């Protein structure tokens, strides 16, 4: 039996009916057409599917869309405002913190959540904070640098 859900995504409210088993990541990508959130493992390990749900970072492959009913989601598409990069996006670019770009949306959303709860993390806290996001291209060093750079940008 399908369930009606109402979800706000990047500021827009969507109302639709979904199968209970529809994963939130498939809802975001296939129903809403927001392809920026990626699937890397579907097994809750790689974090490529990370979005912000009700202010907290979550793996959208490990949630059903029905669980998000009434909630508010921020995806990578919602981060830049009026064509302007968020300081995290700028910092990622400046510091070459992405190569293939596949893990990047999830990595940025995790970083966004990290800086929301801890505005001046240590390197150790950064690495632990993104430990739920796997990257095969960068070796993480430039990602850590980018987050540290974003801290500076956000604090000025």
């Amino acid at each position, binding site marked *: 039996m399908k369930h009606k859900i109402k979800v706000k995504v990047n500021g827009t409210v969507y109302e639709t009916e979904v199968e209970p088993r529809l994963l939130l990541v498939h809802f975001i990508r296939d129903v809403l057409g927001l392809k*920026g959130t990626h699937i890397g493992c579907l097994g809750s390990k790689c974090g490529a599917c990370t979005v912000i749900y009700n202010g907290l970072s979550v793996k959208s492959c490990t949630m059903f869309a029905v669980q998000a009913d009434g909630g508010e989601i921020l995806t990578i598409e919602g981060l830049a405002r009026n064509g302007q990069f968020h300081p995290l996006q700028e910092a990622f670019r400046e510091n070459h913190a992405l190569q293939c770009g596949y893990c990047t949306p999830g990595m940025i959303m995790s970083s966004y959540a990290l800086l929301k709860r801890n505005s001046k993390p240590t390197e150790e806290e950064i690495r632990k904070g993104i430990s739920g996001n796997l990257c095969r291209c960068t070796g993480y060093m430039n990602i850590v640098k980018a987050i540290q750079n974003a801290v500076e940008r956000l604090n000025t």
Partner: protein
Amino acid sequence: MAFVGKSIKRKEDLRLLVGKGTFIDDIEIHGMLHAAISRSPYAHARIKEVDVKGALEYQGVIDVLTGTEVAEMSNAAMQMNSKLITSNAYCMAIEKVRFVGEPVAALVAADRYTAYDALDFITVDYEPLPVIVDSEEAMKSGAPLVHEEAGDNVAYHDLYHYGDVDKAFTEADYVVKKRFKYHRYTSTPIETNGVIADYNSARGTLTIWANFQLGGMIHRTLSDLLKIPENKFRLITPDIGGGFGNKCNIFYMILIGLLSIKIGRPVKWIEDRRENLMAGASGSDRIFDAEAAVKKDGTILALKTKIVDNVGAYLRFPEPIGIIRAFQTALGCYKIKNLLMDIYSVYTNELPAGPNRGYGCQSFYFQLERLVDLVAKKLGLDPVEIRKRNFIQPQEFPYTTAVGCIYDSGNYPETLRKALEMVDYEKTRKEQERLRQEKKYTGIGITTIVEPGASNMAEFFIVTENLPLSGSTEAAKVKIEPSGQITASVGSCPQGQGHETIVAQIVADEFAVDTDDVYVLPGFDSLTHPWTTASGTWGSRFAAVAPDAIILACRKIKEKIFKIAAHILQDKPENFEMKDGMVQVKGIPQKALSLEAVCGIACFHTLLLPPDMEPGLEATHVFNFPTVNLPDDKRRINLASTYGNSAHIAVVEVDVETGQVKILKYIVVSDCGKMMNPMTVDGQIHGGVVHGIGGGLQEELIYDDDGQLLTTTFIDYLVPTAVEAPNIEVGHIETPSPFNILGTKGMGEGGSIPSPAVLASAVEDALTPFGVEITELPLKPEKIWESVKSKKLRWAL
């Protein structure tokens, strides 16, 4: 040069950072259906019957494809095993399955969830057969045969002898002998494999989108196997979420292509992670029985090695190149003049092996560098000293190795010296001594390697004359649009290496414009991009061969531009240069035309062109690396184009109670010739090193005796997270290659090649008081714990 050599910010980032990349699963074609693949649960079994009735009746299922149909509709891929006549490789098992996860049928449904559900309704009747997973056991007579027609499980065997190894061994003062085992692991790009195929029956054309690394290289093969004329086959690679060699599997493109041909509608298939680990790609596991012949003064005269390579269930293209490729740098940085390699590629009921970042080199270096360390120990020499005594010296370049490979340039002593300086070697050794007194065990590992770039396609030709391939080519096309804007394209299939940016840097420098003025076609499209039969992004080739193709294409156009300007401004073409977007006489800015004006003549007002000049401003150039050659009568051959080098030093601490390894410091000094974009070079090194650390410490594809893969998810297959990855200090030396215009060398794999070996070296060094020898990987804490426990502490501290 305004741009080449600088860390220019990447063009690709602008779309990737906002989630607007176009990856394979982002592409939707009207009328597209979704495929799911039914796979064998057995490692070895005869297929008695494939019953698809239930699946065909399942609501939402459109059609099914079975092995019988595959055999009719497609041609089998050749395995490079001259013994095989009939048991060739299809995209699906036909009569027998040979590894867990091998496709046995596929279905297509309206949506992916229905496709997955319907898989339960394909029932296959299997007759299990005895399984063989150990490569040495597989070589014994009486072992279960993976391919009966081959008569045994040896997929490929050859003996390569360079120099005179026997003579060298008689002259040796010492022989150091050791067995080494290298394990199976993979690269797991975060994006799995994916294919969309769209057959247009009215035109007889097939378009395939795939996140595939070998675009041009495989174009002809795919058209042959799919029975689609090559000029009606279009292959497109969109943004690719990482490749690392793991996206070289041709079979999914065939399978999904056949589905679309059968149904006449677009079909999409996206691999899930379990399928990727089970049936995607991995490096092979390899056993080396190696011997080094050594003189008292430390000179290594010869290397003799028997190699048993577990290639899995099929010699899947491009195997056995995983072995041959490593010949490019089999002797590393050393002047070893005699080499004997007795090579066996062996079938087992495991995943067919294939490229895995470093492709064959990392295991060869594990053997070589560990052996060099053992030689050092035997002679009582420091591992630095033994290397210095055997290095090829800077004045000896270009240097031809015993194999025939022409190392273009390098300064190995300087690379090592700089690395030692960065780690403060003397101080670190003293600190190590001090810590040992406190029962803290730190170790220093040192490896020095040569990194090959852009393979000579004749590496296939050495294996079999059925593949007459040779050369190391790349194609580039540059066009100046009638409006004066510049478009460039190249035959690579980038997966994050930043080619769009680097190509723009090169072109911008040639035309003295800004990189923002150059549009580089993203990805690869066989219809719109230039390409050769070596094209793609694999084997660290871009920097070795692409820049010359691009530059020479630009210069063909510049030649025309200068002739046009000379004709209009009444001067000699050789007096002109490009400056600030203008075509001007050198030193006389008033005597100039804008590029737009030149285009106006070339494209619109064509009667003003010099006599006999072809209108338009576009050019293609195909570059063939000048030093690659064909094998001589002794099978000596230059197997790669460029040869960079690097030194890695790792400082580790081993917790002898638990066996855990902590990396305290990791140093890389890299020489990849001229760096076009240093920022991207460092990025490649970081990623490669962390991958090698994963392979060295914790990544492993583990099979049980029934051929079942036990590491089928990221819970059990241990990709390093940001917590395990260390900070890496990178230094650079630039010894440009004399054989291409910019002096650039391929370097994408260099980070991942020595890193497992350097960690082994460091751990062994840390455990010196215990006399532990590391000859196998990964460096699992339990293995280290076991080794320590089995030895007594050598001396009281």
